[in-house]
């Protein structure tokens, strides 16, 4: 079997990085982000990254790490509201930003991985998002053309993997990770647990191994919570 297993994030990224590259990074907010791989990207010093990620992390965590070091030249995101350093760089003109509606972003990535160069959607018709895009009528309604997205490298975070690269995600940490796994020319996955081949139920694999070229077990997961909301236990 072709070996997909690597000891850690740095070796898993070895030979894949170059300045000016496009990287997709999984996660929603800080949930389900590839913590180890982001840290390894920072340590690699690779520059001029176009980062495709729903959010931009927070100051000092997630993609915020790569903003601090100015390794990101452009972000394609749907929401970046949790990051002061992002705001500073953007307002200073040091950072390019392309906003996509969240569902359009998700579908563009899914399309990129599925060999679909363009699709029509009603999302954004009549808004700034539609400017400069082809409009077309279907059944009397107006839609705009959105294009597929691919990346030089996709970095994703899963819960469990087997040595064939089959992945399973956990709860809402799934989010953008499965589509990004399909849309990277090379996809590197970090997981919490590596299980033996044959121990995942084949009906229940979220990402088939064909999409994962490199794989390692991550360590020291912080899994930070952005909004810790709780309810009170009712007392009798």
């Amino acid at each position, binding site marked *: 079997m072709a070996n997909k297993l690597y000891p850690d994030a740095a070796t898993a990224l070895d030979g894949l990085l170059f300045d000016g590259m496009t990287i997709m990074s999984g996660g*929603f*907010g*800080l*949930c*389900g982000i590839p913590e180890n791989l982001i840290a390894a990207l920072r340590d690699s010093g690779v520059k001029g990254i176009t980062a495709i990620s*729903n959010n931009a992390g927070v100051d000092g965590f997630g993609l915020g790490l790569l903003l601090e070091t100015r390794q990101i030249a452009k972000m394609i*995101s*749907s*929401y*970046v*509201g949790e990051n002061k350093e992002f*705001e500073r760089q*953007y*307002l200073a003109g040091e950072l390019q930003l392309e*906003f996509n*509606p*969240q*569902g*359009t972003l*998700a*579908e563009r*990535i*899914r399309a990129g991985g599925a060999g679909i160069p363009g699709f029509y*959607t*009603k*999302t*954004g*018709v*009549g*808004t*700034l*998002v539609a400017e400069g895009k082809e409009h077309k009528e279907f059944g009397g309604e107006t839609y705009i053309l959105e294009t597929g997205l691919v990346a030089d490298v996709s970095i994703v975070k899963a*819960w469990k993997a087997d040595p064939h690269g089959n992945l399973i*995600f*956990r*709860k*809402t*940490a*799934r*989010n*953008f*990770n*499965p*589509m990004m796994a399909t849309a990277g020319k090379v996809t590197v996955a970090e997981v919490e647990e590596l299980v033996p081949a044959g121990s995942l139920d084949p009906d229940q694999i*979220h990402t088939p191994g064909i999409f994962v070229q490199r794989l390692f077990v991550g360590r020291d997961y912080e*899994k*930070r*919570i*952005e*909004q*810790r*909301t*709780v*309810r*009170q*236990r009712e007392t009798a």
Partner: protein
Amino acid sequence: MWTRDSQAARAARELQDGFYVNLGIGMPTLVANFIPEGVDVTLQSENGMLGMGPFPFAGEEDADLINAGKQTITELDRTSYFSSADSFAMIRGGHVDLSILGAMEVADNGDIANWMIPGKMVKGMGGAMDLVAGVKKIIVLMEHNAKDSSAKFKRACTLPLTGKGVVDMVISDLAVLARPAKGAPFRLIELAPGVDLDTLRMRTEGHFEA
């Protein structure tokens, strides 16, 4: 006039048994506290979850289980998880019955603006454009007037739009305005206690039928 809780309770009366509903961040979240007895609704969270439960008890938070507002939540016996692409396929495909959102402005043609104020740092539209374009029915929960007392239900939106002609109902602290179909004019459905039609007209810019 309605309080925020009263507005949320009024919105909750629009819920029907069996509805699949997406609640926006802020005041719309309160609607979950007022779901009428005997009405069973399933909450969708656009980050990839159907069947959202309440906040967890302290100490039981799970970093892998958050809603679209990045708040810790819980699951129910009906819950399913899916990817963001599948989540927005569900939204875009018209499978969600109702979305309740906040807004900065709504126009009397159903336009909505709730994501961007020129000159201020733009945080992004998140899933709002997808929701207003895809969900079957859109209810806006907002204050009737802005802090400078200008009307938020307008002839035309002045802020960049989130969606064009998409709003079906506005529930403000003063009144409920609604229309039977996209493209139809808005009508006054209900006045909040202590609000009369003259007051409403004075504090409204957009056209509505009374």
